[in-house]
């Protein structure tokens, strides 16, 4: 329940407001996690916030977190330097059902920072590529400047066993790619709707439209998973902050089968 100190060993600037931190434990420690889980990251004296684990699950000795600076704690996280120490509690929460999806086509839909919790899932799928059917990554960002993991995206795009489609809401100079919201990529993705599992993460409104577009192509809400975001203080089901209808997002989620939460997802201000 108390944070353990981890040392920042690398800081990578992703975009103007987002950084990726690589952490190593201050004492030898293996940290197994499942794709989709998150940690509570604590900055000395400032506070603690939930941040998804965005590293490769095959590397449990190093933690990777991608953080977008939006407020006090995330700004402090983004200003950490190599050698600094953060407190870590975790891993918490449910995971993308990567094993259940074996034998199926996998469609990953990410909006903005929503790619961070999906990255470990994609790593897992690629490491076990033979076990899956078609694999598709659909990724939308606000502008080309907001794209995360740029080099990796380019590398993934170069693969023949993976379809990667990227879109931006508004293009600037030098962008020759797709423009439009991420749902506009769904019709051009190559998958068999009856045999597909979809994993979706992004702003709620984006997830709402994505589920709709997937449904229109014939993917059942039973086969769609989304990752929810709620205020979190404890991450272990005590503080009550993350409640979403009957669910505690911290322990029952953050990853939910859409069909199971649909009833509450449709109501405003739940």
């Amino acid at each position, binding site marked *: 329940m*108390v944070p353990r100190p981890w040392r920042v060993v690398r800081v990578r600037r992703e975009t103007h407001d987002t950084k990726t931190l690589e952490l190593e434990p201050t004492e030898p420690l293996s940290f197994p996690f499942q794709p989709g889980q998150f940690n509570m990251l604590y900055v*000395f004296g400032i506070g603690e916030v939930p941040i998804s684990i965005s590293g490769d699950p095959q590397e449990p000795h190093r933690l990777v977190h991608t953080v977008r600076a*939006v407020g006090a704690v995330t700004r402090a996280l983004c200003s950490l330097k190599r050698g600094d*120490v953060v407190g870590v509690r975790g891993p918490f929460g449910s995971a993308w059902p990567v094993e259940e999806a074996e034998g199926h086509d996998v469609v990953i839909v990410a909006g903005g920072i929503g790619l961070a919790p999906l990255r470990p899932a994609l790593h897992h799928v690629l490491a076990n590529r033979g076990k899956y059917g078609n694999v598709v990554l659909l990724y939308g960002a606000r502008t080309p400047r907001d794209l995360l993991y740029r080099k990796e995206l380019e590398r993934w795009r170069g693969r023949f066993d993976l379809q990667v489609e990227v879109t931006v809401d508004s293009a600037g100079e030098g962008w020759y790619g797709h423009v439009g919201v991420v749902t506009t990529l769904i019709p051009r993705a190559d998958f068999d709707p009856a045999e597909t599992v979809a994993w979706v993460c992004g702003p709620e409104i984006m997830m709402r439209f994505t589920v709709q577009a997937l449904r229109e192509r014939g993917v059942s809400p039973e086969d769609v998973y989304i990752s929810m975001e709620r205020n979190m203080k404890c991450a*272990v089901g005590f*503080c009550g902050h993350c*409640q979403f209808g009957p669910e*505690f997002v911290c*322990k029952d989620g953050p990853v939910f089968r859409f069909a199971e939460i649909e009833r509450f997802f449709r109501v405003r201000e739940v």
Partner: protein
Amino acid sequence: MRLDLDLRATGQHVIDRGDFHVLFKALRRRGYQVVGPRVRDGAIVYDALDSVDDLPQGWTDEQDAGHYRLKRREDPALFGYVVGPHSWKKFLFPPHLRLWRARRNGDDPGFEVQPEPLPDTKYAFLGVRSCELHALFVQDRVFLGEKHADPVYKALRERAFLVAVNCTQAGGTCFCVSMRTGPKAQGGFDLALTEVLDGERHYFVVEVGSERGREVLQDVPHREASPQEVAQAEERVKQAEGQMGRTLDTRGIKELLYRNLEHPRWDEVAQRCLSCANCTMVCPTCFCSTVEDVTDLKGETAERVRRWDSCFSLEFSYLHGGSLRRSVKSRYRQWMTHKLATWIDQFGTSGCVGCGRCITWCPVGIDITEELRAIRESDGLTRGGGEEA
């Protein structure tokens, strides 16, 4: 051995009022800190008790929606009131609790986290009502989960000695009968008392609920209860059962609320609710908390403090960019739906034990039983307009 034979007769015992003070001594000798009801600032609150003289002898309370008043009784009953603004949760789930401290090591950017030592206080709760016992069971399910347990709650809860008191009189906002949580304590206590005043006689019929309870009772002068004494006690509890100030129909309650999340009654109650959070503070099962991270001026030590929070505050549902439950309507709906419906999915039990505190202590007299009734009576009525994005 003689004693065991005697026990078989009614299985219950009697402590006379004149010997009641010995219970305090017996508990204290075993290292318990006795906490229980006493009068303060015009209400009966729970706090440390030095002796039997601290109990609210001769007092009762008058309760209704938004109304609480202490009144003198005509008899010297010690437990002749119902429940006040406090509940036992304040002892096991302290309103303000430091979780840990962290210290920087000189110039090194690292720091060391020191967990707080676990409390070793042994509380004896004197005067736990049946609904309150159920509230403890409810919080046990919250804080003593299979995967995670709150260590402070666990340490205090395991040590706590519970002296239950069966209600012989119900309050104006009580509805434990509807919630099947009272008025008689059915288990989970160490000792359970029923206070009987009968003309000149004043005594307590005692039921033993645990081995610890049996040991404590050995130190207090007592005798076997006669069948008449047990009958007297039962009759008084029966009387309380018939006096419930409120009722709540729990049939299909979860689905009722789930299908009425858009019921216009939520808008209506939001017109009255001040979003003051009183109802959550007085509720014996509400468990929400928040944390504060602070540092000293030099920035060398930091600490995290946990304190009670409420789903009625705007910040409670804050995500960068704004709060999720902006309207009072959504916050009242969250609270009541949690108490009566989602709690059942979460913990396999209702989150409401029918103690009536939220009704009594609401400054504008909003009544959870009335709100539920209003929805039930117009089940299925929805706000026009349908889904909004």
